[in-house]
Each structure stands twice: as C-alpha cells, then as structure tokens.
C-alpha cells in the first residue's frame, strides 16, 4: 500500500523556517494518518465505483476510524483550527453518518446548528427544514471529498439562498480536480489525491476495470448495472415530495 508522503519529502522541504514548519506538519500528519487509518485498517483494497464515472482501487472506511472515539477529537481540533476566527452560524454536511458526527463536533465549537442534507435515490437535497437567510455564515463539513459532487451542489444551493459560505473543511481529500475549482476556501488535513487516487474514467483508464472485469462494488454494494440506471435517473431531478426521508430521524420501533 502506498505511503502518505512521497519519498522525497525531505528534499522538497528546504532548511528555511517555513520549510521546516511544513516538514513538521507533514510529518505529524503522516504519524496521525498511520495511527488513525492504517492501524485501524480503515483503507480497503478492491474496486470501488463512486458517483458518475469515478473509480478507485481504495475505499476509506471512516467508520473504523471513528470506532475509537479519541481519534475523532484529534481530527476535530485540526478541522476547526483554520476557521477559528469565523463566526459560523450553520454547519451543513452532505453525509449522514461519519460526516454528521464530525459536523456535530465542529458545530459544538462554533455553537452553531447542524443540518444534514437529505439523500434520496442518490441525489443530494439541501435540507428541507433549513432556513438559510442572507445573514447566515455557513460552513460545510464532511469526512472526505471524493468527487466533490455533493459539495458543489450544496454550494450552489447556499449561493442561491444568498448566504455566505465560509468554506469547506474535510478530513481527507481525494478529489481528482484541483480544490480551487470549488471557488471557496477548502481546508483538508490529508491530501490523498496522489497516494490513493480516484480515477476519472472519462479521461483515464481504470486499471482495476481492465484487470478484474467490470465487477465493481459500490459503497453500499450496489451493482454497476444499477449504477447506470441511476445515472439515467439523475438527469431528472425530483423534488422532495413527502416527509419520508431515506435516513431515519429517530428509531421509533
């Protein structure tokens, strides 16, 4: 499995103070990555298909990282730090499990409210009960940016509402596009776009597809044929019609 830092990290960091600082940051992040992700066996090897044409050999299972509650505290401090001075009023997350937990941790430090985007048939909806006003300062939080689709959609929805978006803070970035494309400040702890890359199959060939044949496992083990159907379906965006959400709002049994 490839390591987080390239072998010539030492060479690229010069002897200047800023270079040393950068080197120390990279090194501490390297240790943190090893303890949180590699020791917890959070990185799965295989063939995984993300939304649209994005394939990868690796899947980062955040559930295994947050299994140890202490690791989330280590991550939260680093996710909060770049936005310390901002007066964030609302925190939105496109994720409903691990990203939601991290969003809660960040929102606790800002004393902000947390909203989770609704997801029906694989399409992200900005929360229906979210009343964004023009005075609101919104921060987007997630565990990782894979393709960035959900983030882009949330950003456009926030812009439509006229609110200010302070930025995006995520733990991992594996986005095949440059992060400056988002148009807002994006802060990540670990940039894994070169070590654990996601391949855009429109541009590059996916090695796994070639070697394994197209038997890809989706995040929630949805077969690839269904993925294609869903992509057809995605062209027509449905408006949420009922109070029935895909993810439960409580476990009333």
């Amino acid at each position: 499995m490839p390591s987080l830092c390239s072998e010539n990290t030492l060479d690229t960091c010069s002897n200047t103070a800023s270079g040393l600082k950068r080197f120390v940051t990279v090194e501490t992040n390297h240790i943190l990555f090893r303890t949180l992700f590699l020791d917890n066996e959070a990185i799965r090897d295989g063939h995984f298909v993300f939304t649209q044409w994005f394939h990868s050999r690796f899947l980062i299972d955040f559930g295994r990282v947050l299994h140890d509650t202490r690791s989330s505290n280590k991550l939260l401090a680093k996710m909060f730090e770049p936005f310390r001075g901002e007066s964030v009023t609302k925190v939105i997350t496109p994720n409903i499990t691990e990203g939601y937990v991290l969003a809660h941790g960040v929102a606790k430090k800002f004393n902000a409210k947390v909203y989770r985007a609704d997801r029906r048939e694989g399409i992200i909806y900005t929360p229906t009960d979210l009343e964004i006003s023009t005075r609101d300062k919104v921060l987007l939080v997630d565990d990782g940016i894979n393709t960035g689709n959900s983030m882009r959609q949330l950003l456009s929805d926030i812009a439509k509402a006229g609110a200010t978006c302070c930025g995006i803070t995520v733990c991992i970035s594996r986005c095949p596009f440059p992060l400056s494309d988002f148009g807002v400040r994006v802060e990540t702890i670990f940039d894994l776009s070169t070590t654990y890359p996601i391949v855009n199959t429109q541009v590059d060939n996916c090695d796994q597809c070639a070697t394994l044949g197209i038997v890809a496992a989706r995040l929630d083990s949805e077969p690839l044929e269904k993925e294609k159907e869903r992509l057809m379906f995605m062209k027509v965006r449905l408006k949420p019609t009922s109070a029935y959400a895909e993810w439960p709002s409580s476990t009333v049994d």
Partner: protein
Amino acid sequence: MTATLYDMTMDLKDEYTSLVSRVLGEQLQVTLYSKLSACPSDDGVLLLDFSVVTSVHESFVDEFLVPVLKSLERGEAGDKYIVGVNVDQERLNLKGIDDLMQRNNLLFLTFLKDGGTLLLGSPNRQSIEAIEFVHKSEKETAAHLAVQLNVAESEAQSILSFLGKHRVIRERHAQDVGLDFFQALLDSSERTRLLKHSFQEELLERIDRQRAIERNAHYQLPSGYHAEEFLHLSRVLDDARFSARIAVFLADAFKNDEIDVILTVKTPNNLVLAQGIGDYLDAKVVPAILDQVEARLVPASNIRLKQGDRALILVDVIGTGWVVNLLLALASNGGANVEGIAAVVDLSEAKVGFTLTKTVTAASLTLKMYSPGECPLCAQKIPWIPARILPRA
C-alpha cells in the same frame, strides 16, 4: 427573591466542557456582569450550572470568579448572590479553587451533584457546619444554630454575619426574621425543579418548540405497531451543544460501570450520541446495521465485538423495544456483557421492562401508537407508510 439558572458553557464559543483559559474567564466575567445588572429585581441568586463542565483551571477561576465575587462583596451589584450547582466533586479540581479562594479571602458556595453542600475557601469547621445546618433547615434562627454548634448565641450570630458578609447567606434576614437562607433557592420544590428536572423539562420543551412530534401520520413501525404520532428526534439533536449535554447526561449514569463498548444502530442520531458518550466514558463505538438476509443486526465496517466486553446499549428512542432486543441479541452473539441501556426518550410508558439491566432515559413521552390489528386509522382505510428506521447493510 428570584433564582436564575445559568449554564456557563452557553456563552463560551471556543471550548465547551473544559474551562481552562484565562481569556475565557475574562470573557465570561463580562457576560456575567451584564447578566447580573439585567436581573430585574434588586435581589437574586444566579445559579452557575456546572453539570457539563469537565475541568476548571485555576487561571480561569482567577479571571472569572474572583473579580465577580469581590465586587459582590463590595455590594456593587445590589443584593445579589452567585452559587455553583451540579458540581461534580470527583471530576473537577476543587482543591485548586479552594486554595485560590482562601488566598483571596473569599467564600464560594457550591451544591454537589449528589445533593451535598460544599463551601470553597472555607476558613473553619464551624462555618461549614453552620452552612450545612442553614442549608437543611431554612426556618431556624441564630438561637437554633447556637444550640446546634454548641456555642454562645452571640458567637453563632458572628458566624452568621461573617457568612453574610461573604455572600453565602443573606445577612439582612439572618439577624431579624430568621435565617431565610436563599428562600427561592432553598424552597425544596423550587430547588428540585431548578436543579433536578431542568434537563428533562428543557428536553420536552425543545421537542415541543422544534415541532419534533409529527401528528396525524400513519406509519407502520418495524415491530408491526402502527403510529399516529411519530417523534423526529433529529430536530432536537440538530443543536450540537444540546446533543452534547444529552450525551453527558446519559453517560453520567454509567460512569462507574467501566463500559468498554457502546452498541448502537448506525443512524445519525445514535452515532452522534454514541460519540459523546464514548468520549466521556472512554469507550469504543460499535455501530450496527441490519443484515439483508436475516432480521438481525451486524456490526458495521467489519468491527468485531470482543468476548467479555462490557457493553452499553444506546438507542435514541425506545418505542416497543424491538431495536433494543435486536441489539441485546447482537451483544449475546458477540459474547459481550450488557451493563445497561441508555435512551433519550422512552415512549413505552415503562411497559417495556428490561428488568435485568439498568435502563436510563432522559425523558418519557406518551404518543398514540396502536398494536397490530387495533389501529383505528386502518379501520378508516387510511394508507400507511413503512417507517424505515434502520440502515441497510
């Protein structure tokens, strides 16, 4: 006399449960002065709620409590008092605060979580006994105190005036009409309301305010029951600080049980609560998802339970106990010992008895739910919607 409960952590944006920095102390001092001056009546007690505070540093107290108490002693804020409540003696470093109070010749009265009284900066034994006596019996006079302490009445009077000077009892009333110690605070029903039931009441109030109960619905629950009213607890847990308080409240009940793992269902509410509780109890979180083949739960992300783990079962809402039973089965399959069950809201009207295990709930509610075959909505032929409450594998 009015008593106001004030959660200190509300106004501190930076850190939440640990009050350690000098800057935070300064910040809170300003807020507290404005709170005191905004108090409508001339006399009032401000109860500082320590229930979610996990640590207090001396430097914080130095910048926050000492200046406020000093100005109160000088009578700058009228006839007002500050008292700490819900203090956890084991968790907070009270020795350091005690020393600081003694050095500054101040007294700070605190009520402990389990009901006792603690006088910080206490100069002698007699004052502590006097405070305990006064705290227990609000209608007694200085003469009774003299008998209790076995001293002359004049000496008892001087002890009382000393305590009154340091703003831990009301001196004005101590001399003429009886001790009348923080009448509003000590009136047992009022005090119980403020201290014991504030959290439950706040939770129920928030459920009401956020319109978390959906009425006129018709859901079929996985246990087969039909629900006319459905509780969407996520609307309450959206407030990050309040959900942290719920987690601390639930975790506090299990702090002596040496919990290793928290078994829960992988839904947003439960994950957030489990993280909070796991952080407090230093336990690991095992989220479970529904197995597609059988109606049973399996741990998500290939996490394995260890033999003999001490497990806490966490669900946000107990309805009929169907989910709890699935989690109990998961624990017994994995070889874990279940030490307790924690839930935020109990809808079962205590009908579901998990008598073998300690069950802690933050609040109880009664909602309209019908057993299969007795649903009046089905009789009216209103179509039902299946409530999906569990995540798929």
